[in-house]
């Protein structure tokens, strides 16, 4: 593309790679930072799994981190647990799904030269990075990082050590970042669609990013409000979340009182339930793209899944209190939220079913991206179905706060969303770098990850049904009635460490392929969407396309009878 440099000026290094306003560079910045945080958050869990498998035995190699004896203290365990959740969700998965993939591919798939507000885009990344760094600072303040769980329930979090204040400041930065990002994504999709790209011609991935944008825009502010209130509690001595007559360590707490711990839970879950769909919708979008491309068939029921996703987004705002059945908020409210929870499972099933039917009669190409996308379907299915007993108030009483819950939501997020994100990396890496990832290493990565991840989470259902609490530092030794299930702990922990090893081929693959991988052509997977058909690999800096494309048809016209290539690009007249 050297013939066209006349309209494009070479920029200095810091402007091109560090403070860039090109959505593609920002997308890659988001991607790399998020992958580093994912690995770090996972490492925290691998440390915790030692304590669960071998309670109170000194840890090899890393023991010195936790005191002279090498045994993890309960408060350190709590810190690692709280930070694992925070890092994985707010610093890992969402930035990768929305910040990296959304930023990079939404403008490309809609035929836009960039996001609508490039400078806002840059500030959104830097807010995210600052939030991440502030979160990390928490580990070094007296008392360690936040240790009241990723949910930060008061009154515990109100009286916790300084790490909690740091956590709150970190969250405010992360919320600002996602606010800037979501305003940008929605505006871009509404305003910058190429000529002819009507709403029902949008690739499914763009639809999921659009709905996700609204969830981030409208669900995060109440958490910001809650964060402000908790900061006031911790710094200005108010008692928004502290009831009158609260006794801590045998002494009456000297506060004005009159607050309510439940208030935090309502505000928190008003964000955190839509957040679940922020995690899953972009994953579904990625899987949809890859399924259509590799079955060489249109996505089955495109319109139904678009409507189902929109309904899902709307409903996600009215199910939050199903996390609170045990708080004593009353059976009337429980009945309401139980009903809405059952309703929200319908669109999820519509989407999943449509994706399964899409496979029917397809001539499937089993490349690594497709394997991860196929892995997503049953894994998300298990995660979704095991959620139903948690959404019903009566059965939730038994299962609440046990390992069953951990198993359930990890099936949705880990082998669900994270597998879809891996699929996205394998699928779009050729477009982003011009190099193809190695298939053999990719398949090793997929199969080992698939086996070990199930080794971690499947036994959690057994332990949870036996009644093992998710919060116990000693692995549940104090739970006499569940001792029969403790032999599973060692196997689960071993699986977790092996899952860590299984990521090594992936990291090697990223580096090796970037250096000396097979060169990708512009449309490596013979896809129909604009980023493959109209932009070079990698796309041109700051404008993406040689000529801004026009769109003439829907996104997935594969195996069209009579077409010479076997597929018709969206931009073909």
């Amino acid at each position, binding site marked *: 593309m050297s013939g066209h440099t006349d309209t494009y000026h070479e920029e200095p290094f810091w402007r091109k790679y560090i403070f860039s306003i090109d959505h593609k560079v920002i997308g890659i910045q988001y991607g790399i930072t998020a992958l580093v945080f994912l690995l770090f958050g996972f490492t925290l869990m691998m440390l915790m799994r030692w304590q669960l498998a071998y309670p109170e035995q000194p840890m090899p190699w890393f023991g010195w981190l936790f005191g002279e004896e090498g045994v993890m203290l309960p408060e350190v365990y709590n810190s690692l647990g709280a930070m694992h959740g925070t890092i994985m969700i707010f610093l890992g998965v969402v930035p990768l799904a929305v910040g990296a993939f959304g930023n990079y591919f939404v403008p490309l798939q809609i035929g836009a030269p960039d996001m609508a507000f490039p400078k806002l885009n840059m500030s959104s990344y830097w807010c995210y990075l600052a939030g991440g760094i502030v979160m990390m600072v928490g580990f070094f303040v007296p008392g360690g990082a936040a240790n009241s769980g990723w949910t930060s329930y008061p009154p515990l979090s109100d009286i916790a050590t300084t790490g909690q204040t740091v956590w709150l400041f970190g969250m405010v930065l992360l919320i600002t970042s996602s606010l800037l990002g979501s305003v940008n994504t929605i505006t871009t999709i509404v305003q910058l669609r190429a000529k002819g790209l009507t709403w029902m011609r949008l690739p499914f991935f763009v639809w999921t990013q659009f709905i996700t944008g609204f969830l981030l825009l*409208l669900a995060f502010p109440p958490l910001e409000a809650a964060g402000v*209130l908790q900061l006031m509690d911790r710094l200005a001595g108010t008692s928004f979340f502290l009831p009158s007559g609260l006794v801590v360590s045998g002494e009456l707490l000297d506060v004005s009182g009159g*607050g*309510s711990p439940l208030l935090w839970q309502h505000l928190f879950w008003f964000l955190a339930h839509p957040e679940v769909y922020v995690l899953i919708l972009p994953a579904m979008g990625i899987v949809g793209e890859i399924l259509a491309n590799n079955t060489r068939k249109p996505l089955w029921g495109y319109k139904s899944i678009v409507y189902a996703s929109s309904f899902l987004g709307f409903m996600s705002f009215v199910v939050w209190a199903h996390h609170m059945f045990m708080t004593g908020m009353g059976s009337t409210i429980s009945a309401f939220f139980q009903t809405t929870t059952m309703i929200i499972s319908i669109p999820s099933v519509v989407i999943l079913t449509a994706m399964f039917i899409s496979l029917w009669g397809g001539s499937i190409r089993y490349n690594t991206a497709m394997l991860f996308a196929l892995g997503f379907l049953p894994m998300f299915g298990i995660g979704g179905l095991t959620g139903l007993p948690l959404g019903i108030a009566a059965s939730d009483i038994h299962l609440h706060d046990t390992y069953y819950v951990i198993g359930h939501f990890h099936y949705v997020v880990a082998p669900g969303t994270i597998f879809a994100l891996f699929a996205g990396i394998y699928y779009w890496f050729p477009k982003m770098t011009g190099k193809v990832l190695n298939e053999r290493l990719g398949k090793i990565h997929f199969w080992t990850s698939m086996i070990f991840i199930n080794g971690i989470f499947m036994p959690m259902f057994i332990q949870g049904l036996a009644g093992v609490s998710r919060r116990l530092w000693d692995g549940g030794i104090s739970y006499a009635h569940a001792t029969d299930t403790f032999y599973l702990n060692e196997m689960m922990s071993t699986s977790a460490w092996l899952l860590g090893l299984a990521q090594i081929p992936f990291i090697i693959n990223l580096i090796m392929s970037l250096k000396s991988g097979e060169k990708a052509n512009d449309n490596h997977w013979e896809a129909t969407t604009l980023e493959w058909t109209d932009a070079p690999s990698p796309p041109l800096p700051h404008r993406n396309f040689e000529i801004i494309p026009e769109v003439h048809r829907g996104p997935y016209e594969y195996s069209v009878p009579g077409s010479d290539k076997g597929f018709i690009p969206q931009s073909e007249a």
Partner: protein
Amino acid sequence: MEIPYNVEERQDTGMYNAKLGIWLFLASEVMLFGGLFSAYVFLRMGDITGTFASGSQELNVPLATFNTLVLITSSVTMIMSWVSLKLGDMKKFKMHLGSTLLLAGVFLVVKYFEYSAKFHHGIYPDTSTFFSIYFTLTGLHMIHILGGMVVIFYFLVPGSKMMKTEPERFTNRIETVGLYWHFVDLVWIFLFPVLYLL
């Protein structure tokens, strides 16, 4: 490459980018203050000792009424400044936008006297749940006023150069600032009865 619809409207949506952007931002602001107003309702419903009713008695209603009028007037001058720009009258634009900035300053000065009177009487955020939410809500609102003042000042002095090079874009910018300013005004119109009168 220029990003399309930065200045001119897109035909099928009838908006330029920043206008949609600011509306989305305001939607999120509605949720932020909505969350806090919900907290107010939630806490007031559980307020068995009556700190809400007795607390609001101690607030200064005449001062707050004056401040309400100040903010409403500032919204009017904000609109006038935009209209002046549309008519191409730079002098009137500066006068009206300047008055908006001045009125915002008056609001903050009045608020300063209100706050210091409270502190003087030994009333702080930790006095009771009512004053906790009073200081939090009005404090957050003042941060929004301050943020608005910084942006207005920017467009009044250094930013107004743009009028010579890209008049249409500059007018759009004033329109979006105006939308934000009306929102901040509207939040106060909710805060005033909820905190002072109920």
